[in-house]
């Protein structure tokens, strides 16, 4: 099987290795000298620079004219239709709809609080100094609070989950599924490396099956098969069904990353722990997993970024996530057809999360590497 661990570089996302060009190494030239060498160093280089500038001059001004100069920043859809450029007034008018979709407008403070709470938890999780048991409890309490807030169990009126939508749904599905998939993945990774043959075979079958099929198929299983497979045809909520299947799906991908971490631990560690008389679970808990997980945290962050992008597939089964909310916003009869603006706006939100996440993952890799060297 092609797995991540026999592929160098598969676990890293960014350019952390230096350029192979000799000569520029170790010498820190002043900025303008580097610029001149990088842009006009050789005749070939100058030609590339000029060609690139020409291409830019051809593409950038029309885009700027559309996005800035001819754009409508405020007003009605009629004014937008009259102007040639982008209609940012649409985004301003539809901001609340894109964020919270069909949630009752009078109760928008609830999804707003949910987003704030989840962002605060994410920010705290990003800082290694908060990595202790309390954070786990905070997440459990936070998710429970978010769910109760959205459903309105304690603060009536209740809102059924088919009216939930927008950013809170995207963030909730993402965090909850990732959170539950991680312990599952650790179990799967340990099972795949087990010397019990049947356990190993079962783990391999599950992981490879999940990794072979597209996420859309998994969502269809959640939509079509899962309702049939529960006793007496009890109808579980669509969002929860999707979350169950997504959790299982992501756990297979996470398990491969965790397994790569386990393989990176030299066998001497396990042997030494065994010599101390520790049983299997104590060895894993005290010796192997802390080291293995530490090495793969950056890779898990990268996977989490991919998962956030993948939550947009919820639109396929009609759950109104952020992307679907943006699309629905552009089908409003009074603001019909401003798809490009809606897509650009949510693209910017996704980009902010994912680009930030990938930079964070690079920083974390350096931080953890430095911490390891300090011992």
């Amino acid at each position, binding site marked *: *099987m*092609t797995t991540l661990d*026999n*592929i*160098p*570089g598969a676990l890293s996302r960014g350019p952390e*290795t230096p*350029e*192979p060009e*000799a000569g520029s190494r170790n010498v820190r030239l002043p900025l303008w000298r*580097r*610029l001149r060498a*990088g*842009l006009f*160093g050789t005749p070939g*280089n100058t030609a*590339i*620079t000029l060609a*690139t500038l020409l291409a*830019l001059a051809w593409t950038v001004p029309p885009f700027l004219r559309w996005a800035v100069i001819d754009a409508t920043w405020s007003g009605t859809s009629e004014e937008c239709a009259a102007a040639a450029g982008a209609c940012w007034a649409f985004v301003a008018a539809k901001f609340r709809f894109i964020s919270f979709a069909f949630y009752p407008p009078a109760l928008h403070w609830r999804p707003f609080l949910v987003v704030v709470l989840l962002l605060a938890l994410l920010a705290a999780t990003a800082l290694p100094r908060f990595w202790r048991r309390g954070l786990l409890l905070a997440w459990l309490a936070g998710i429970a609070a978010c769910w109760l807030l959205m459903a309105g169990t304690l603060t009536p009126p209740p809102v059924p989950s088919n009216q939930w939508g927008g950013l809170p749904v995207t963030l909730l599905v993402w965090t909850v599924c990732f959170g539950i998939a991680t312990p599952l993945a650790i179990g799967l990774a*340990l099972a795949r490396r*087990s010397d*019990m*043959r*049947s*356990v190993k075979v079962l783990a391999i079958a599950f992981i*490879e099956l999940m*990794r*072979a*099929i*597209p996420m*859309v*198929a998994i969502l*269809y299983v959640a939509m*079509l*098969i899962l309702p*049939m*497979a529960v006793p007496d*045809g009890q109808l579980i909520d669509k969002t929860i069904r999707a979350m169950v299947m997504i959790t299982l799906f992501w756990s297979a991908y996470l398990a491969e990353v965790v397994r790569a971490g386990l393989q990176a631990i030299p066998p001497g560690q*396990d042997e030494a722990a*065994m010599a101390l008389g520790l049983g*299997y679970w104590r060895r*894993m808990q005290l010796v*192997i997993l802390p080291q293995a997980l530490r090495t793969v945290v950056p890779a898990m962050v990268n996977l989490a*970024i991919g998962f956030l*992008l993948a939550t*947009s*597939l919820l*639109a*396929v089964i009609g759950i109104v996530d952020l*992307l679907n909310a943006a*699309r629905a916003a552009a089908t409003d009869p009074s603001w019909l057809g401003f*798809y*490009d603006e809606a*897509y650009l706006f*949510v*693209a910017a939100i*996704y*980009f902010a999360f994912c*680009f930030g996440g990938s930079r964070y993952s690079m920083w974390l890799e350096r931080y953890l590497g430095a911490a390891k060297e300090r011992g």
Partner: protein
Amino acid sequence: MSETGLTPAAPGPAGRIRAWWGPRIVTQIVTVCAVLALFWLLGQNTATTMERIGIAPGFGFLGHSANFEIGETSIPFSAGNTYAYAMLVGLINTVKVALLGCILTTILGVTIGIAGLSGNLLLAGLVRGYIEIVRNTPLLLQLFFWVSLTKAFPPPRQAAPLFDAVFLTNRGVFFPAPIFDGMPDGAGWLIGLPLAGYGLFLWFARRRGALTLRRGLLAALACLALAAALLAGNGVSIGFDVPVLAGFNIRGGVTITPEFTALLVGLTVKFSAAIAEIVRAGIQSVGQGQWEAARSLGMHRGQIMRLIVIPQALRVITPLITSSYLDLTKDSSLAVAIGYPDLVSVINTTANTTGQAFEALIILIGVFVTINLSVSYAMNVYNRRVALRGSGPR
């Protein structure tokens, strides 16, 4: 965890089976039984539900006639053909977009990856920006964007042709198709012969280790010239069926639908970023010492790249690119969201019209598992081959 068995296995076949099976027999039996029980329970429930809503389980429905049309087909299909045939149409559509996507994304990705390594600051910065934007936004969002772009093309009768041959319209992209006039029956050998010749050349050149890019290209040109001469000698004239505006529509040429265009462009762009990164990582994985050693042998940059760096980089690049291809094939299933009738889309329609969701999804999963396992197998064979050819410490 540890592969080193502390207790030596007893000799004989029973001991060997026990060593293969591993320790803790009771735990293992309990695990297997628990998994089987879970599946039995789920299966039982599913069977009960199907019975309750009046659906007979089984694959008999595949032979029934499907009462839906498929918007885009490579082989003729009409409502009334069987479900199995509809799925085949869907599978062909999936394979079509996946194959074309893999080819185009490789071309674009390698170009971008090399542009990023060119050492020109402006170009490298642009490439970085492209990669970050493409990589950090969802594929489905990009597909929606491409769909809205193809919808924004003018209707056929207002479309301005590019180079008098290609029309970008909201009904699809029209471009010229090559046609062979006066082709006698059974004249396939006119094309088959040069192709076979090229295949033979590749095989011999490879066996003698004398295959280079230049020789390959020259031979390809020679075979093309041979084919053209053979065709001309047998009274076949090669022309182009150029699309022209006729009334309200465009006639002639080949058409690709807006959905196919959007899906193909979307997949190509999304995965080109991944492939550009893979190419960069692969080339950078070749140590600086390799460059220095090659330079001290008097090689110039192109030679070092061709003879030293790329062969080693390919060891890193090939498995990564293969898994990108698999991801692209899997992600082509997003077609269902933009109305391109791929396998997933056809299977979804089948499940909804027949109610045989369980069987339909089993087929879907089976197809993707087959694709994945066969590519993984080919990859393992390749890995063993490159590993054998002395990959000493770098």
